[in-house]
């Protein structure tokens, strides 16, 4: 029986009185490109932190590749790659030094680490910046380096928290191609981003979290059909963009009225 690449059940995280993530349950099949969306403060980053071991859940369970996942599950950690919110970079290293360090932290041998470091630097167009410290990199370059570090050990499951933020269009296109290639070779990718066009282009499945609760989950086409059926008038599901689906689900439909507010603004 094939197990889910990622499976959560009743995942909850509380910060004192505040519940950031409330009973989230979903499943991501192997080989899926899964988009995890939500407005600011909805609980996306908290969820991804719990899924990657950066934050302990207050309640609920997580399974990665069919095994229970916790921060101490070292074997599972070898099989996942992460670009976390803060990118996890060491500012006082150069890019090759950092990639070699990460490779060794994931248990790669010296030869493989060096070879992959070279390939990744070339692919990410960072090969001419080998003497620059990471702290002196632009935000976009840091993102590319963080992504390179997340894949250097060839993970089966990749978690990406806003990977395209600050990355230029050329690099973004290249990264998308790389991610698509990983999917084609059987990897699973869990992506959170605010750039809905990217999710629309890349992801086959989408989940939407709002105020800590999962409010939608399923294949993109199913979501389209579901939202179309709730809209007044006969609107074709195919015409609905992800942005319209998203706004419809998280209930931000009164935006035209907001334009009348703050009239003192020029």
């Amino acid at each position, binding site marked *: 029986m094939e197990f889910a690449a990622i499976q959560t059940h009743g995942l909850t995280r509380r910060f004192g009185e505040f519940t950031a993530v409330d009973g989230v349950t979903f499943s991501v099949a192997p080989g899926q490109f899964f988009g995890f969306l939500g407005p600011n403060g909805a609980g996306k980053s908290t969820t991804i932190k719990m899924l990657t071991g950066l934050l302990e859940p207050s309640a609920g369970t997580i399974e990665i590749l069919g095994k229970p996942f916790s921060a101490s599950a070292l074997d599972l950690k070898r099989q996942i790659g992460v670009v976390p919110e803060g990118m996890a970079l060491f*500012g006082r290293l150069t890019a090759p030094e950092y990639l070699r360090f990460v490779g060794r932290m994931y248990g790669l041998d010296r030869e493989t680490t060096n070879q992959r470091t070279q390939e990744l*630097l070339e692919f990410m167009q960072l090969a001419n910046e*080998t003497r620059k410290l990471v702290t002196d990199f632009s935000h976009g370059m840091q993102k590319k380096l963080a992504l390179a570090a997340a894949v250097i050990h060839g993970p089966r499951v990749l978690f990406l928290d806003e990977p395209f933020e600050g990355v230029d269009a050329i690099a973004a296109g290249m990264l998308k191609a790389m991610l698509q290639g990983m999917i084609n070779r059987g990897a699973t990718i869990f992506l959170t981003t605010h750039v809905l066009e990217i999710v629309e282009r890349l992801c086959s499945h989408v989940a939407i979290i709002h105020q800590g609760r999962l409010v939608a989950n399923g294949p993109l086409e199913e979501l389209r059909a579901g939202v179309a059926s709730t809209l007044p008038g006969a609107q074709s599901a195919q015409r609905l963009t992800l942005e319209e689906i998203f706004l419809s689900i998280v209930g931000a439909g009164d935006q035209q009225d907001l334009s009348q507010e703050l009239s003192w603004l020029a």
Partner: protein
Amino acid sequence: MARINGARIDNAGMDGAQQALATGGGLLSPLARAQYAALARLRWRVFVNGLRSKLGAFELGARVVAYVMYGILGLGLGAGAGAIAYSLADSQNWQYSPIVFWVVCLIWQVVPIMLASFQEQFDLSSLLRFPVGFRSFFLLYVVFGLSDLSTIIGGLCCFGILVGVTAARPDLFVWTALILAIFAAFNILMVRAVFAWIDRWLSQRKTREILGAIFMVLILSMQLMNPAVWQHGHRASGKRQQQQIQQMLASPWVKTANEVQEWLPPGLAGVALRQAASQQPAPALGSLGVLGLFVVAAGSVLGLRLRAEYHGENLGAAPALKKSAKNSAKAVPVREKTAEREGDWRFGGSGPIAAIIEKEIRSLLRTLPLLYAVGAPLVLVLVISGSFIRGASRGPAPLVAFPLCVFFAQIGFRMLFSNNLGTEGAGIQLYFLSPTPMRTVMLAKNLLHSAVFVVVLVIAGLLATLRLGEPGAVVVAATIAWLLFVLPCNLAVGNIFSLTMPYRINPGRISRQRGSQASTLLSLLLQVGVLAVGALVFELCSIGGMMWLTVPIFLALTVVAVFVWLRILGNSDDIASQHKDLLIATLMKAD
């Protein structure tokens, strides 16, 4: 027109004052004054909010203790300066007054480094998005520094001098106040100019490395300077030593140095005071005028830096040295370049311990505050050994002189041991994401820090030998045994502090660092503890005339300490897991 929470907002609703603010203006315009008030309030809120800590009530308590300690330190220095000033004024020894001003100046310039972690920091360049004119920006930058510890302590010293001089010579009140005001203005501008420029230089890798090298050369020079000055000072009697001091003061280089210092700000302040006391108002005004020129010069140096920041230069994006066209034409292919750099892989092993050690070496060499912390206490070896030499009028230095001198050299390891994750920044996440247990991370760090500890203490031992003479074999063995005990104690407690009371170290700055008062105080307490244990063992064994017994006692204590260290190391993952949120939130916090 719109309503927000029932409030009516439109331009027509502005009263006169608001209109004036909106129109902007000069240095003292309504807008500028409103900005100064807003900044004063901001400074207050930064202070109050700084009392909030994720580390809880213990950290708050430690901060209160630290405030009290620094308060006592400031008042003590002020009272000391006042007493010396009174004594000089009362005995008419005005020729020594520059010394007081030099000491105050030194304290003023050094305190920002020593007590940097005490202060909450705020990057004033963020003010640039507001409509702030350059002169207002400059003034705000200076005014913002008025509540810095260095200014408060320096101000207290100046106040002490004013009170001391006035108590002895009430007729000099106006002169003293005037001299001190200009002297204080110089220090306020100078300290900010120095650190503004240092931070600018540290923002570039090249200059950062050059500055680091200069700094290390300075440290080493200081090591050599002291023995050079006191080369005949070994075992000298009090009388002989006084003669040596007299000889030294009479030497041509001291006379030249004295002539030069009289043209520098602290010297000028002292000279002006002496001239005023001798009823020579015109020369005193002349000295004050030259001192005023130094104020203008310090202001200009600061202004130069601030003008660049005002025009949008971001320290994080300071222009790097341009590569020459020749160099770029000879660009080496990437694969060759990385292959060349394979030589950088200094440890044969591929495992995480070797990786972390290599990474730590690279980070340490590029982190000036840590190098400074580790290197600077070596100066203490000379200071303390000097006091032992002067204290022992005849005969050999006491038995504890050598171990004490070497012990003080390890005080600089406090930051390295007790906050060993402090420079990781966002990289801390990697330790939680990777399949490497935290105990491996801590072990690798402990191994490297132990190696550095050994190197620094060997240097300290050599310096102490140079100053005190060759110690006996038993003393050396006892010292080594004691330090073998001190090391695992530091590692064990340091690992706990690092995981439970972390604070972020900005590797690019020597000034304006954040800190954890609880960690600082507790690690100092640990130093007092191991010092007390050492003193007790040495004392008991020397009373019994069995110094050799110190070695087995310390070795037995070492076994216990190593056992505790290993236990704590084994529990690192649990401790880190319990404090994961705190570690990530604190170390990732932006400066």
